[in-house]
């Protein structure tokens, strides 16, 4: 058991180290996220009530697009230098190793997205209720995107172009987007958001259970 925790930690730490050594991809996807969000006040004007209605949705759409960009890198370098084959060949369960990689992706991508979103929310003067709903939906939703997206990233790794990855991820992540925007709309009207929160949490649990299995078997198929 301790051995498994150890190998999980080793892979997790390796991915974190790789991300922070190779900062360009990491910074680029976050910069992309900020730029997309800031384009909207520039095009639609800066009236506070308008921003309160559109900005939460825009933050969600930008997070989705930035996820597509950042997920392309999660397996790419491992695939190119062949270390992914070592992951598949060693004696530890592949599901565990893939989960460690997904967790590392969420730590280096999901958490910065949440922090930046809240900062942007303060700058663009969103109301407190909306900020709270945005925080809850992002903290439940971004891990779903990382989990679901990692399966698609395995399926498309090594194939030319990240366009394919986006086409696969975007339709499948629509429920997350819909529940999050309903929750934010309800919050802005002063309604409870508990139902949407439960739904997102349910999808998250489903994704945590199934996505690593799917990613591991996809990895085996890709390397067969």
């Amino acid at each position: 058991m301790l051995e498994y925790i150890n190998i999980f930690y080793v892979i997790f730490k390796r991915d974190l180290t790789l991300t922070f050594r190779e900062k360009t991809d990491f910074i680029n996807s976050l910069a992309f996220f900020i730029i997309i969000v800031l384009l909207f006040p520039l095009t639609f004007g800066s009236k506070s009530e308008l921003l309160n209605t559109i900005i939460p949705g825009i933050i969600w759409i930008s997070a989705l697009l930035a996820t597509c960009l950042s997920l392309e890198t999660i397996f790419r370098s491992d695939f190119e230098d062949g270390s992914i084959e070592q992951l598949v060949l060693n004696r530890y369960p592949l599901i565990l190793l893939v989960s460690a990689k997904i967790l590392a992706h969420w730590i280096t991508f999901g958490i910065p997205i949440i922090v930046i979103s809240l900062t942007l929310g303060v700058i663009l003067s969103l109301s407190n209720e909306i900020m709270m709903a945005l925080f809850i939906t992002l903290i439940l939703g971004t891990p779903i995107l990382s989990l679901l997206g990692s399966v698609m990233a395995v399926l498309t790794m090594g194939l030319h172009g990240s366009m394919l990855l986006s086409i696969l991820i975007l339709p499948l992540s629509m429920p997350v987007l819909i529940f999050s925007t309903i929750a934010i709309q309800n919050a802005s009207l002063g309604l409870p958001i508990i139902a949407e929160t439960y739904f997102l949490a349910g999808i998250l649990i489903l994704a945590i259970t199934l996505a690593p299995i799917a990613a591991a078997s996809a990895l085996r198929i890709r390397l067969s």
Partner: protein
Amino acid sequence: MYKWIHQFGSPKYFYDISIPLSKWIAIVCAISFIGGLYGGLVLAPADYQQGDSFRIIYLHVPAAWMSLFVYLVIAFSGAVSLIWHIKITDIIARASAPIGASFTFLALVTGAIWGKPMWGTYWVWDARLTSELILLFLYLGYIALQSAFSDKRIAARAGAILVLIGVINIPIIHYSVEWWSTLHQGPTISKLDKPSIHLTMLIPLLLMVLAFKTFYITTLLIRARSEILGYEYNSSWVKKYVIK
């Protein structure tokens, strides 16, 4: 039983049996299509509320059913080919995808044409319309993934994983958009004991459903035959068939 499955799984046997099979099923398709269209467009009375424009139901409903049915066929054959590595299910999944995408597209287009006189607009952001549109994107993603690989076996198994995730996701998508907004009329036929549709309207509809299903099987068999030739291009029986 097991022997039969084994036999059916062999591409050559499938190829041989599919030629007469597709002919007979095509005949059934033609008869039920003509009967269904005649019954639907001529014999059935006009709807008291929707007038003659309700008649597009005879294309719209079967197409919408088939769009989901074909997706389930792809998912089922994907699961079978992941578990038992049967070549013919790879071929069925691969050959079904464009047909299913076409059915989805047809359901969307006929729905839009129906929506104009009924709702006054071609497109509304209604739950069923939106989930049907998402289904079309799922099909397009599957087809795109299939064409991205040069090795067809890996393509089939990668596509199987994608489509199985999609199957888990379809109910979630459906309920999410249903919650989000709804305007579509309730189902007409699913209440089996006492349908809220008159018999003279129902029989042509069921004939059209049969016609669509047999049309799917016919085109599937024809497409699968050409896929088989692509898969098995360097086996001796294909050479014999092609030269003959």
